[in-house]
């Protein structure tokens, strides 16, 4: 257990160190990087990724994935535009969008937990479906002129701190508390480590996963609302491909793609590192296309690195264990009398 804890803090600390190092180097090398203005831009850029990364972390920890988040964002944005165009008031539109997101997430959850389909295949399907519906709703139009009080709040800041920092911080604390300090959070790790074991220990796997997808849909829709307000433009193709950045950031933050391992603080580090790298490259006049290459490479490296580290570590451990000659094979231990070899009916029936 303490060994596990050490490994978590190890990865978190490494990401944080890389982040700090990168910010220092970029601040020295890239002009305009270390300015307050740029920092608030960075917050705006990382907001949608961080928002969606929160529920995505929980989902990946349970060993599942949701590739439809960017399309949910786009559909939420398109619906927001269509309703605003239709003369509805923004105070009504935003809750509608959030509920819509929850419904879209529930559809994912129903297919995955209700019908027992692989989340990868389902969310590739809904990736296409939701984006397609966004185009059905809004076509290739763009809706603009959202109320200034909202758009200005999203991009504004008070006392030098961008307004968006506060809701992000609250959500980060909520998700962090749930994942790391509640029985529910522990049950997510258990599910990721082994679904059967989780089921046998009384965790309602299907129900929990279903609600995770509902929350993820709602948060992705919220990201869509913020996205629309930030650019004051509702388009069906808003946020296309954002799922890559989200998955890359989560994995970069040390969450295992196989489930069962990871921390939200590591993910925060991953999101910030990704945002800082992209921001610095953009300031250094690197094209958007090159940025794509960098994000893609970061994604690959972030899944390769833990495996490589693990392989090296086990190789080292093997070499260390080698010097003493292998102990003679111990006789198989007799089963302790107390353990009943036949499972109880209660266990068998579940």
């Amino acid at each position, binding site marked *: 257990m303490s060994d596990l804890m050490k490994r978590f803090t190890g990865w978190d600390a490494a990401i944080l160190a890389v982040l700090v190092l990168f910010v220092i180097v970029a601040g020295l090398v890239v002009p305009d990087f270390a300015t307050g203005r740029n920092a608030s831009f960075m917050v705006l850029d990382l907001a949608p990724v961080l928002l969606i990364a929160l529920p995505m972390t929980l989902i990946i920890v349970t060993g599942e*994935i949701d590739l439809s988040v960017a399309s949910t964002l786009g559909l939420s944005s398109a619906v927001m535009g269509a309703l605003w165009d239709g003369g509805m008031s923004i105070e009504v539109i935003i809750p509608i969008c959030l509920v819509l997101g929850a419904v879209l997430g529930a559809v994912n959850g129903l*297919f995955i937990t209700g*019908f*027992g*389909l*692989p989340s*990868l*295949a*389902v969310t*590739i*399907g*809904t*990736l*296409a*479906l*939701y*984006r*397609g*519906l966004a*185009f*059905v709703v809004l*076509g290739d139009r763009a809706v603009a002129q959202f109320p200034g009080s909202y758009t200005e709040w999203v991009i504004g800041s008070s006392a030098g701190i961008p307004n968006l920092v506060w809701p992000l911080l609250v959500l980060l604390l909520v998700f962090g508390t749930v994942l790391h300090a509640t029985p529910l959070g522990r049950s997510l790790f258990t599910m990721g480590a082994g679904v059967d074991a989780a089921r046998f220990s009384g965790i309602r796997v299907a129900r929990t996963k279903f609600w995770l997808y509902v929350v993820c849909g709602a948060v992705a829709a919220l990201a869509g609302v913020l996205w629309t307000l930030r650019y004051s433009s509702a388009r069906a193709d808003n946020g296309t*491909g954002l799922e*890559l950045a989200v*998955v*890359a950031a989560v*994995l970069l933050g040390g969450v295992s*793609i*196989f489930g069962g391992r990871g921390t939200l603080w590591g993910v925060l580090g991953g999101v910030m590192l990704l945002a800082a790298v992209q921001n610095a490259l953009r300031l250094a006049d690197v*094209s958007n*296309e*090159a*940025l*794509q*290459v960098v*994000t*893609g*490479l970061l*994604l*690959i490296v972030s*899944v*390769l690195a833990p*495996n*490589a580290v693990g392989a090296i570590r086990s190789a080292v451990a093997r070499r260390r264990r080698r010097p003493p000659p292998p102990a003679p094979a111990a006789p198989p231990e007799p089963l302790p009398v107390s353990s009943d070899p036949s499972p109880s009916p209660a266990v068998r029936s579940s």
Partner: protein
Amino acid sequence: MSTPTSSRVAVALRARELGIVLALVALVVVTAVVNPLFLSGQSLRDLVLAAAILVVMAAGQTVVVITRNIDLSVGSVLGLSAYAVGSLLEAAPGTPVVVAVLVGIVIGGALGLVNGALVRFGNVPALVVTLGTLYVFRGVAFLWAGGQQINADELPGGFLAFGTATVLGVPWLIVIAAVVVIVTGYVLRNHRSGRELYAMGSDPAAARLAGIPVGRRTLAAFAVSGACAGLAGVLFAARFGTVDAAAGTGYELNVVAAVVVGGVAVFGGSGTAYGAAIGALLLTTIGSALPVLGIDQFWQQAIVGALILLAIGTDRAVAARVAARLRKESSRV
């Protein structure tokens, strides 16, 4: 002992492909009733020509999906291969068409090998690797092209003619697509290495224990998928004449949809290249039937998504029913 079981599974699979064929026929009939011109020779030829590129990619994807992997980078491989071949022909207009085709296949195969090597040696899920290379390959294409596009008047006429030329009245593109599907389908069904791919997809651990070179087969499967996407890039360049770095963007969704709709199980271990080809044909037909039926073109992507969900849902239900029946019969014995 296993004969009744396997024959029943075979029947179920055949029924699965029959289902898509029926859906395809129904769609064509309905569309033809609305507009009889839909069944004219020219319209059908255009339809099959448009499907050829998707069919080639779907055959390659089938090989990967059967092993319980996925290749999301195919659209980007197509783009990179199309631009590479376009640049080659622009620089050296005398290049024979055969050489251009081979160059595309080799480029695609090399990119596929990169995917396969990352999956095999990195021990990471194909989904994440190919999601990453989707963006890396596309970015490389953009960096290389630098916003330029290759127009039809910069390509040699012989190559463009290849896009429309026919042998015995059948366009080359269709001949190539058919050959790719038949060869892939034959190897998967009748060749030892093909059978091993199914075994890997059914149970990777058991396949390893049975002595199947899982790592090498994985590499080969991704190389085949890449090579097919590379070939599709050449066909794309020949058919459309205009190539830029964005060629084939988003194709991966259609390819995955075609494969899944065509009855290739996403959990690996079952499905055929023929089914995938019919799936590709169905998707393309939907695309060209929409305007005839007076449905907004914007619906197409949504329909693709809905079809993916419908296909995996149906497969799951059928599999559950077959399993239940098998269990019942074995308990009766």
